[in-house]
């Protein structure tokens, strides 16, 4: 499959760019990069760990290009170094423990936003100026431009501090041990309600607007008129004819906005004290834990590239024109 292979190659180059960025930024800053990067490490890390950490980031006694190759080798073998804040854990372990919670929040809220937003978009395009359109479209436009941090803070203050309806932190009650028991799952669900709702609200507008605008443009096409002339039912025209085609750009926007959603998730987790990547990262930033901050860029880039690849595969499946090539 030539198309997918070329995409994979492109993603490899993009990943290499992110790694190169990570490599050159500390070296481009004024002053001694080693002293800067590991200034906080001296107190927590034993000497031999510090040496290993330096080597991971390519700070070896060699020319710059050899240093670069050395760093690339670390990155491509999955070694992101040790975390300074969470020593003795490695960056991989810190991110590995936090990532499932972030993926849970992002995945669930994206699915909900996609379903709700697309459905509302279809409705408001079908009856433009109707009740759904007049309420949902302006509301979602406003929601789209409100920062995630604002939505999260308002939910946290309103529903969990002032009204005390929901817990205000952690992913599950600290009295429980992780297990597949009913009590544990219920606790996880209860703690996830507010973060998931606020992340969904932030995203729903984007899907609604994309879907509405595509539907409106498609509804003027000849094949819709033809379908109507044949006497097809409204529902069939709406979903099988128009919505099916209008969905393609929504899939693109899913992959494109994933970066923004991941960013929104980081903020939401910090506000709700939710133990995902954002929360860990916040701790890392406050402690100037550079290996962790750099590691999250690599992980986020990898996540972003995978999402783009999934969108590519979906495209090949949904758009027959691509399959022929």
């Amino acid at each position, binding site marked *: 499959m030539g198309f997918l292979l070329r995409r994979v190659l492109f993603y490899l180059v993009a990943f290499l760019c992110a790694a190169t960025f990570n490599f050159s930024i500390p070296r481009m800053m004024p002053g001694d990069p080693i002293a800067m990067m590991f200034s906080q490490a001296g107190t927590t890390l034993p000497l031999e760990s510090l040496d290993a950490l330096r080597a991971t980031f390519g700070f070896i006694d060699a020319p710059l290009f050899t240093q670069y190759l050395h760093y690339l080798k670390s990155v491509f073998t999955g070694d992101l170094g040790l975390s300074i804040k969470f020593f003795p854990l490695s960056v991989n372990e810190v991110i590995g423990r936090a990532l499932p919670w972030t993926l849970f929040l992002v995945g669930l809220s994206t699915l909900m936003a996609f379903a709700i937003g697309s459905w509302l978009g279809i409705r408001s395009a079908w009856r*433009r100026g109707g009740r759904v359109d007049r309420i949902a479209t302006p509301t979602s436009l406003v929601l789209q431009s409100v920062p995630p941090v604002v939505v999260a803070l308002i939910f946290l203050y309103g529903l969990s501090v*002032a009204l005390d309806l929901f817990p205000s932190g952690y992913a599950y009650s600290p009295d429980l041990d992780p297990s597949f028991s009913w009590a544990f799952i219920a606790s996880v669900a209860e703690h996830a309600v507010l973060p998931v709702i606020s992340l969904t609200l932030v995203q729903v507008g984007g899907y609604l607007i994309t879907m509405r*605008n595509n539907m409106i443009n498609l509804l003027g096409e000849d094949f819709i008129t033809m379908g109507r002339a044949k006497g097809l039912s409204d529902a069939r025209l709406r979903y099988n004819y128009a919505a099916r085609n209008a969905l393609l750009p929504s899939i693109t*926007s899913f992959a494109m906005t994933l970066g923004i959603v991941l960013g929104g998730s980081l903020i939401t987790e910090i506000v709700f004290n939710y133990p995902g990547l954002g929360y860990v990262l916040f701790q890392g930033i406050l402690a*100037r834990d550079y290996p962790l901050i750099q590691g999250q860029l690599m992980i986020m880039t990898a996540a972003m590239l995978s999402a783009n690849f999934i969108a590519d595969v979906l495209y090949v499946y949904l758009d027959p024109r691509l399959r022929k090539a």
Partner: protein
Amino acid sequence: MNNITRSFLSNPRALVGLAIVLFFMLIALCAPILSDHGPNDRVARPHQPPNTEQIMGSTRMGRDVFTQLVHGTQTSLLVGFLAGFIVTAVGTLVGITAGYFGGKVDEFLNFLTNIVLVIPNLPLLMVLAAFIGEASPMVIAFIIGITSWGWGARVTRAQTLSLRQRDYIQASELIGESSWRIILVELMPNLLSIIGFNFIGSVIYTVITEATLEFLGLGDPSAVSWGVMLYHAQTSSAISVGAWWEILAPCAALALFGAGLSQLNFAIDEIANPRLRTLGRLKRYQKRLAGDPEDKPPVNAAAMAAATRNDTVLQKEGSK
């Protein structure tokens, strides 16, 4: 041009958006008049709820929230418009150059744009800001400006590519007009709605992103902006001690300003693409009476952005 201004001023969304944005600009300009002490002066006891002296209450450090808010408006607006300008300038330049000159130039610039688009922006900015250390608002504006132009470049390129095929451009080329004249005089006016859409979208994005970075503790904690206000509120646990006014003020400002800009952007989209207009019931009725045939719309910016990815993929596929 007159026509554009008229349709802009008769669009209710545009008027609402314009009013909100002008209101914030006025606050930013009048900040020194609106409050007689400095934003970082300690003028009250810590965490006072709103009262006659401090109409928006005070922070844990005893600073006046209202004074911080009006001075923060200055910073946040300046950062927003500065970075919005950089994003739009770079995006438009790259997009037009790639779309107009084509060939190797296009291949390279398009590749660059795709890389910029696919590397997640916020994590990248976090690394940059962390290494710069306590980045001032202007530095944040700059780094957002140089890393966030991908979307604008892609949309501008796609529209330039389609304009390039039109007869009047070909005619200008045949009479030997220079490339720069064609770009500035023939292309630019037809790209105005996309450039405007891009600029306003970038301002929204920058204001949000600046607030986010500062909220994360990557900004300069002694600066005064909406993001730094949120950062101090978060680190002094304003929420758990019930000091809602410290949170509400910057949140409301961010939300209202974003809402105003997005109304402006929606208005631009509606003006550029008449089909997207949400008509009132009366107007719809009148339209039906008049038997107005809905004309084929020009492509709107938002749908364009979504569709172009597919286009570029298909084009590559076709050229293979």
